[in-house]
Each structure stands twice: as C-alpha cells, then as structure tokens.
C-alpha cells in the first residue's frame, strides 16, 4: 500500500495572523510551522504501517506552497514519511479552496496512492473541506473527521461523529480520508529523525510536471472572489481576572455572578 499525506505550512500559532488589506489574502510571512492537525494524519499513516495488517511500501508527504513550505515537509518526514513532493509554482498562488484541491489532486494523481490522508482542518484558513474537493477530482470515496480507522487489504472501516451521533462507514480503497484530532496522539520526532529529514528525497514540481491546467488555478482564476474585508460587529470586551490569589479570584467571580443574579 502507498499512502500519501497532505500537509500544509501554517503561521505559527503564537504569531498574530493578519490579512493583506489589498488582496484579502492571508499575510503568510513570519514564523511558520507544520499545521498541527496534519501531524495526526502522519501518525495515522505510521500506525497503519507499523500495525502490520497491510504492508505499507511508502508514505509520501505532499504539499503545495511557497519555498518555505519545505520546512513543513521536513517536519512531516521527521515524523515518519519516507519522502516528499512539493508543488511549488507561482501559478497556484492565491488559489481558493476549490482550485487548491484541484492542484493537489493533480499532484497526487502522479503518485497513484492507495490512500490519501489529511488533517481535519488547517490551523489558519479554518476550512474543513479540502479532502472532499481532492476526492471528487480523483473520483475516490471520501470521509472527513474520522476518529477511528481499521484497515484491511482493500477497504477501511471508519468511525466518525456526525450530526446525529457516531457513524461507522465501510470504504473501499483507494480513498481520501481526513482524520480528526481524536484519532491518535502524534509522536515526537527523534533528534536523529529531525537531523535526517533533509536527506530524504524531496521532489519539487511545477504545474507542468503534474499536468495542472493553468487556467484553473491561482487567485485570478479562482471562482470564489474576495471583494472586501470588514470588521465584525463591535462587542464589548469581557472582564479578565488573572488568578494570583485564588481565594480573592473566587470572591470576584461570586460577586460577578451575584450582581447578575446567577446564583
């Protein structure tokens, strides 16, 4: 079995995120990291490989993004991926969700995976949808927010929480699965793995290499077009108490509740 894991570089959680006011695109400068949700997808791939139910020949990390996205791939490799593929091309910059999903699907097509895994959402764009877009372009079945996955040679038994409780779905491979963060506790990379990550094969490709139609990608060709940004309705900031003396803190909470007749 060959598993591809889609990963993404996102602004570090500690960095304040902002939007470029002229384009509506996220300002992606500043410290970046591997999207934390993606580490669960890599861990899920590793657990399939180590679980032994099916032989896994290869785990390939795949990303799309600027040059700096290589660091997310290095992190993915340090967590267990065997090699990585980087779609780096100015032509895809500014793509919306639909165009990004198309470009990733084309990149994946060349790898011909049996299973595509990804995280439930990106830490920055808050989209939960890329998996469904990729699956449609690959004509593969798909499920998102999967929290348990049992694999055999040609199918997956997946569990997830949906609108009315927990669903169990049997899915034939090849498939695209986005995993929820409850599926596992990702491991920490060893120092050796971190040091060795840069030596693992990294294939950098452009849109021509993976037969992406240039007229379907990039900000100008995206169907959802950003027109303006506005501030959300003003909400008065709540009161904040830093707990230094817990007895005093609790007194303040009680007074606050009492004032509002909540006790």
């Amino acid at each position, binding site marked *: 079995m060959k598993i591809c894991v889609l990963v993404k570089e996102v602004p570090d959680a500690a960095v304040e995120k902002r939007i470029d006011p002229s384009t509506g695109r996220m300002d992606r400068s500043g410290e970046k990291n591997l999207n934390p949700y993606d580490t669960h997808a890599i861990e899920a791939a590793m657990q399939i490989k180590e679980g032994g139910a099916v032989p896994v020949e290869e785990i390939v990390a795949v990303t799309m993004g600027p040059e700096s996205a290589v660091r997310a791939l290095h992190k993915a490799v340090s967590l267990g991926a065997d090699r990585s593929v980087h779609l780096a091309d100015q032509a895809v910059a500014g793509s919306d969700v*639909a165009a990004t999903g198309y470009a990733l699907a084309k990149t994946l097509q060349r790898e011909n995976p049996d299973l595509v895994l990804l995280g439930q959402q990106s830490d920055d*764009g808050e989209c939960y949808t890329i998996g469904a*877009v990729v699956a449609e372009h690959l004509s593969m079945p798909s499920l998102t927010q999967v929290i348990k996955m049992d694999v055999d040679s040609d199918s997956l*038994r997946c569990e997830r929480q949906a609108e009315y409780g927990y669903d169990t*779905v*049997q*899915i034939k491979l090849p498939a695209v699965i986005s995993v929820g963060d409850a599926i596992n506790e990702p491991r920490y990379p060893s120092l050796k793995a971190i040091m060795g990550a840069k030596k693992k094969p990294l294939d950098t490709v452009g849109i021509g290499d993976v037969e992406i139609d240039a007229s379907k990608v990039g900000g100008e060709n995206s169907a*959802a077009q950003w027109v303006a940004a506005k501030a*959300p309705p003003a909400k008065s900031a709540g009161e904040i108490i830093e707990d230094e003396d817990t007895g005093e803190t609790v007194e303040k909470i009680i007074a606050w509740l009492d004032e509002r007749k909540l*006790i």
Partner: protein
Amino acid sequence: MANILVYALHYDGAINKNSLGAVSEGAKLAAELGGEAHAILLGENVPQDLAASLGKYGAKKVLVAEGPEGLAQPLVDAMAKAITDGGYKYALFGGGLLGFEIGAGLAARLGAGVVMEVTNVRAENGELIAERPILGDSSISEVKYRSEVGIVIGRLNAFEIKDAGGADAAVETLSFDLSPQSSQATMVTRGEQRGADVDIEGADVLIAGGRGLGKAEGFELAEQLAAAFGGNSAVAATRAVVDAGWYPYAAQIGQTGKTVSPKLYLAAGISGAIQHKVGMQSSENIVAINKDANAPIFEFSDLGIVGDLNKILPKLTEAVKAKKGS
C-alpha cells in the same frame, strides 16, 4: 431568473434545524433575486409529506431523490444532476458536517466557487455576496462568485428559521445515477449514541468541560460545581473530550452536537474553537476559566479567568455552596 437549491438534511422523520434555517434563508434570498428556492432531500423512501412541509419555510418545490442516507457523495451526484438540469444559480447549505462535505464535492464537480462558514448572505445587483468571518472571527471577508454556480455553506445556526406558513411545496422525484466513488462507501451504523443519555438543552446553568480538565476524572470538578448551583444545572462537554470518551455524546456542544443558550455558561478548560463557539455563543452570560491567556474563548466571554482550573473550581464550588446556604 436565479433559483436557489437548498440541501435539507433529514433523520428519523424530521428535517434538521439548520436545514430549516437554510430553506428560510434561501427563500428570502431567492425573492430578492427574483427567483424561487427549491429544496432537495435524499434518502430511502423519504415521506412525501415531510418533503412537502418545507413549503412552510418558503420552498416552492422539493426534489426527492432515492439513495443511501448519511453520506455526502450520493448527494453530490444528485445535486449536480439537479443543478445541471434545472439551471440553479446557487446551492445553499446550513451548517453541519455533511453540508461541508457535499458543498465542497459539488464545487469540485461543477467547477463552482464555494464559500464556507458563511454567517450572512446578501443580494446585490442580482447576485449573492457571502460574508465569512476569518482569523478567529476578527475580520469578515466578503466574497462573490465568478462561476456559473455559486455554493454557500453556512455556519451552524447562522440562518434563522422562519415559519412563513407557506403552502405545501410541490414534490418531484429526481432520478440520478450514482458516481463510481459513491458506490465505494457504505454506511454500517448511523447515529450511534455513546455514553449516557443526558439532557442539557433546558438547563439554566451549564458547566462545560474541555481538554483542559486533563482526564475523564476531571469532569468530577465540573459535576460538583453544577451540583453546587443545584436546580436546573447540568454539565456539558466539547467534541474533543467526547471523542476521547471522557463524557457522553448527548452532552456535547457545537458543530456536531447541541446548540444551547443558558443563563450562565461556565467553560472550564475550553480553548473556544469556532466549532464550539457556534453552539454556545448565544448564552446570556459566558464565564471562561483557562490557563492560556491567549485562548480564543476569552475573545467572547463576559468574564474570563486566567488560571489553573484545578485550583479554582473546587474553591468556587465551596463558595457557591456557601452563598446558596446564606
């Protein structure tokens, strides 16, 4: 003419509340565009009267398709067929997991633009503009569509349900073919309830616990505080801890759980992800306790306490008891 096709999720003989909101919103927007809102239901033997009842919320016509329930891809097939044949300009979804999956798949199938987490939609010069909060709701992006079809996926509870008292909608059967990928997934069991069947929706005081409680036993602190408030109080939980098996699914707030608006919502060890926020933001008073001063929940709480809940909750429980006794 710009007609809007609205997806209606149904389960166990009832239409999902978010879908009712989406139908109401679709009817309002279609009127502004000079068109009609139609709805689509897919399932095994969908009752005709259930479909027709969407007329009350403004749907003029309801398409009923026969197919496997609870999975997104059969709906992508059915909606793509309906849109191609019927010339709809927009597809609209209420909040919810299936809506996200169907809307995204449909965007890929039709080459349509898609905007998700939409909190408001308006019609301008004959087209729709979707408003989507971004960056932890600190800014709102306005997005329009360049494609022939535009797809709007609402945020949970974004669209208000309006029972306009309309007449029964005309019901039509939609025939469509399942794509190869749709036949590769099979529902084994649906809607399994995990954990006790607790009732939190009518509570005046909710003590909600998240991952910050540390472990399943951490919920004892939340239960003791709820007991101290007494009367109509209960304990709620986030998706993360329910998925981890710490607390029953029936007590879960947010995207795939309950929507509540108690007089007091006290969030202990909850970071405040959007998926949680959408289920509790209309609470009258929100108090949050979290050790991380940067937790998003402090952005929308009325009283925030930055500190260790293991120290604060037991003392707060004692103080509430004392106050009650006084």
